[in-house]
């Protein structure tokens, strides 16, 4: 017999089998005890014929096995597809809480500055007026020193109105170079309304080193604004006044809602005010024992609530203190 011809015929039959039963028929026909091939094998006498027959048998067996696997898989799929589930039905709940929006912004700012090589320092919330006012070059008679604006516990003890005292402590504790940010709760005697709350969160940054410039401050704040509000944002700066910086500036970011064409959020100016900054006043450097001829520094202090509200379109700052799950779970 012609082994190759038999094999070829068998392969066609195997391939043509459209069910396990049909395949079984083909298998019996070509590989069964009474099959032509098996009979030929029983009668084989010479080595060459034996090899040819065995090769044909192997090819057929492989084809049968492959076809068998394919048919079984198809049959399983057919039966599985009858057990269909509603894949639009909600999954099993995996309850998970949410970080407060301010924490999320705080972490983001921390991470940005960690990435730029800054450390995060903590400070006291209850401070002496020495660290809150005197060290920051705040003259007697400055409005912030009035009990109308600041929470005084007694003449010398106050709730910090900004996180700057942490920076003074940090500067006292070590020598330049200093690259730090401090974040946390601050207190001012504001009446609560949509944009004010007596307690708020600030991030303040401070860098003191040889040769720091106002250009470095502008560049640093531009990076921060772009990382927070998008790489396509522009920054603009305007002169301002703070007792602890000189020169002092106020930072603006191009409006991320209208992209500068003017909208309600940017009061149709195309720019949104973000917060104050400036070069550290030489008096502040001297206060902590640094020589302003040797080192210069820059600092900024911005409100985390403002960043969060602007970025997420939150209309009322008081909502951040209500702790309503319907708000918390949105972020």
């Amino acid at each position, binding site marked *: 017999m012609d082994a190759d011809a038999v094999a070829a015929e068998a392969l066609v039959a195997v391939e043509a089998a459209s069910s396990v039963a049909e395949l079984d028929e083909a298998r019996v026909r070509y590989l069964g005890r009474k099959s032509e091939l098996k009979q030929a094998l029983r009668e084989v006498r010479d080595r060459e014929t034996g090899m040819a027959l065995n090769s044909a048998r192997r090819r057929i067996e492989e084809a049968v096995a492959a076809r068998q696997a394919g048919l079984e898989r198809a049959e399983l799929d057919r039966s599985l597809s009858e057990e269909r589930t509603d894949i639009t039905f909600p999954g099993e709940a995996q309850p998970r809480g949410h970080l407060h929006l301010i924490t999320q912004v705080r972490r983001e700012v921390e991470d940005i500055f960690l990435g730029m090589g800054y450390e995060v320092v903590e400070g006291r919330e209850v401070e002496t007026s020495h660290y809150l006012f005197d060290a920051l070059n705040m003259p007697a008679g400055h409005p912030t020193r009035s009990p109308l604006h600041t929470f005084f516990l007694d003449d010398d003890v106050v709730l910090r109105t900004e996180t700057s005292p942490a920076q003074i402590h940090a500067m006292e504790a070590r020598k330049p170079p200093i690259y730090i940010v401090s974040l946390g709760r601050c207190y001012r005697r504001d009446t609560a309304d949509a944009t004010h709350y007596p307690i708020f969160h600030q991030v303040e940054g401070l860098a003191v080193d040889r040769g720091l410039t106002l*250009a470095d401050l502008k560049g640093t704040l531009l990076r921060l604004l772009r990382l927070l509000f998008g790489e396509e944002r522009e920054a603009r700066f305007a002169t301002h*006044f703070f007792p602890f910086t000189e020169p002092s500036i106020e930072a603006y970011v191009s409006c991320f809602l209208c992209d500068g064409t003017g909208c309600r959020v940017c009061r149709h100016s195309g720019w949104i005010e973000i917060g104050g900054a400036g070069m550290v006043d030489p008096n502040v450097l001297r206060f902590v024992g640094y020589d302003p001829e040797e080192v210069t520094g820059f600092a900024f202090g911005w409100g985390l609530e403002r960043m969060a509200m602007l970025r997420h379109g939150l209309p009322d700052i008081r909502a951040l203190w209500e702790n309503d799950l319907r708000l918390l779970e949105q972020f």
Partner: protein
Amino acid sequence: MRVPLQWLREYVDVQASAEEIAGRLSVSTCEVERIVRHGVADADGNLGLYRVGRVVEAGKHPNADRLQLCRVDVGEGESRQIVCGAWNFGVGATVAVALPGAVLPDGQRLEEVKLRGESSSGMILSERELELGTDNSGILVLADGPDPGTPLVELFPLGDEVLEIETTPNRPDLLSIYGLAREVAALFRADLRPMPGSDPARTAEDEVSIRVEDVEGCPRYVGRAFSEVRIGPSPLWLKARLVSAGMRPISNVVDATNFVMLALGSPLHAFDRLKLAEGRIVVRRATPGEEIRTLDGNARALDASDLVIADAARPIAIAGIMGGEDSEVTEETASVLLEAANFEPVGILRTSERLSLRSEASGRWEKGVDPHLAEPAARLCSQLFAETAGARWIGEADVKGDLPARQVVQLRPERTSALLGLEVEAGEQRRILESLEFDVGDDLRVTVPTFRSGDVTREIDLIEEVGRVKLDEIPFTLPERREMFGRLTREQRLRRIVEDALVGASFSEAYTPSLVTEDVRADALRIPQPQSFDQAVLRTTLLPSLVEAARHNVSVGNEGVALFEIARVYLPDGGELPREEQHVAGIVEGGFPRAKGAVETILGSVQLQGSYRRGSHDLLHPGKTAVTDHGVVGELRPGILEGSWGAFELDLGSIELSDHLRYEDLITFPPIKQDLAFSVPDDVLVGDLAEAAHAAVPELRKMVPFDVYRGEQVGDGRKSIAFRVEFRSPERTLTDEEAAAQRDKIVNVLKLEFGAELRS
């Protein structure tokens, strides 16, 4: 402050548009909040539709008793018929007319209309309609002279663009049009005109008696006497200026003082000289019990810290804040004493705050006005008195204390460039400073003008002057330093780990106020004068605030409430400042097990295991409260919130984040696991059993209860506790015999210590 640009342009020769001026000012000088149009709009030929008219016929409207029907010559050859509601004029009057098509200041477009059957092709205007003043009782009757048809804008400003600016406290010099003109001149390299004002002729040498008893409070007092003053309305140009700057015209004399205040920044006051007792001025502190009725009609009780202007008998003004009614300039006034003085800021602020009395003047004094301004202010005002009220200047006294000398500050131009990060040529620095009226010597020794003396005292202040003008040109760079390493401290990492662990355990984060109504600790720090009752005390614990946060959520119908907070508490400990601890607290629906699970999650997140003892807490169920080394956990007392709630509060500072956990081999030698159940007296604690077992058998690695059973089979007063236990040796695989021996040891110990019986 409102800055009318036409007024500004009188002092500085600048062509730039309002937007350009606002843009430069807001970068380099002060915030410009917006640009508003005041008065008649200057667009599409609108101004040309406002003309001088002469009334050629006037009579009652045939169909309306209250209206006049007029014909008005507006220079077109033929007169126009106009219906008018006012009667304060007649034939021959010169009036202001708006022609059809004109857009009025209120935004309405004037149309030809029929009023009660008669056509009206135009409108005869009142002061108010032109936004020149508040008078709407009749139309504006102009002085005769200008020809009909003359554009009104040639007679007086019809409208202006006004910048609304917000200045910083260090720049009182910007609270004047001239001060802003100086800035604009510097920013646009434009010419600043000399300060306006020239003295009229002095026609007599009357004695003016001025005594300053408090030179510190009043370092300068220029008093000028005027006679033959004719009080009346101001000329329209003056009214227009004041109104565009946001002030109400009152009378020529008062308007002149206000004009000078706005123009130069030094407030003035005019007294009726004949009403001064003995014609004298005494500047002194009030005596306790003195009173004054101020111009706003209120009686004010004065105290010894208030600076007053008095005559020989009584206070006639609260210095720098408001004049008194008694010496007010009225329509009958013919003799005026003009006060051009200087007052010390802090005292003015104190009195103004104490009396809750603020005025345009006090707002300037409290920020500090250049003492050298009194003189030019007196000069400009005298000129206006002469021109607008026909006044004759008849005498002057000038009392001054030691006026501050001008400061001299050395500038190193290379220092400017180094600090700004922008190379600015020395010559350019000089130009900037000179344009701001600093005197710059050859060696860059800079003499500071007196109007900047409060703000510029050091080299850095001069650098800021250059920097603010150049601010937009300064590039964006980053610090050059490379050896900077940012890393969170252990405490900061711990905080994040705990936050994340709790979020993973389905807690959401709350932020509650640190100031509360009341605290459990009687010695908690108090705000001496809280602005409201709920911000009176610095809390020593977070839990009560979280209870309120949970209550809010329940009240609005939120379900599955689980909240946590990480915040400071403030613990008085005898020192000047309280001890601040960082706490983590939580509240959760579901009672003790949920809360304890959260605490175990927190401790587990840093590989710690707590040990729990019975404890007590004000807010917690006495039978379901445990304390650990780190804080407290328990079930909220019934009745505080509906349902069953768990709560905890831990001191984060007491939890240590280990940096060096060691690997333990739990893989090479497998454990032997068994379930053991013990019957024990009801009051025995699971934790005590496990602790005793662990102490007795080191190979006991785990002993976790999974079932507690009470009932007949164990008997009264007893319970059965089933544990899953694991024995494991780090060195070898334990045999069944070894495990059996260890189990027997545990059984014996628990029997001995707790009366426990092994159940089969």
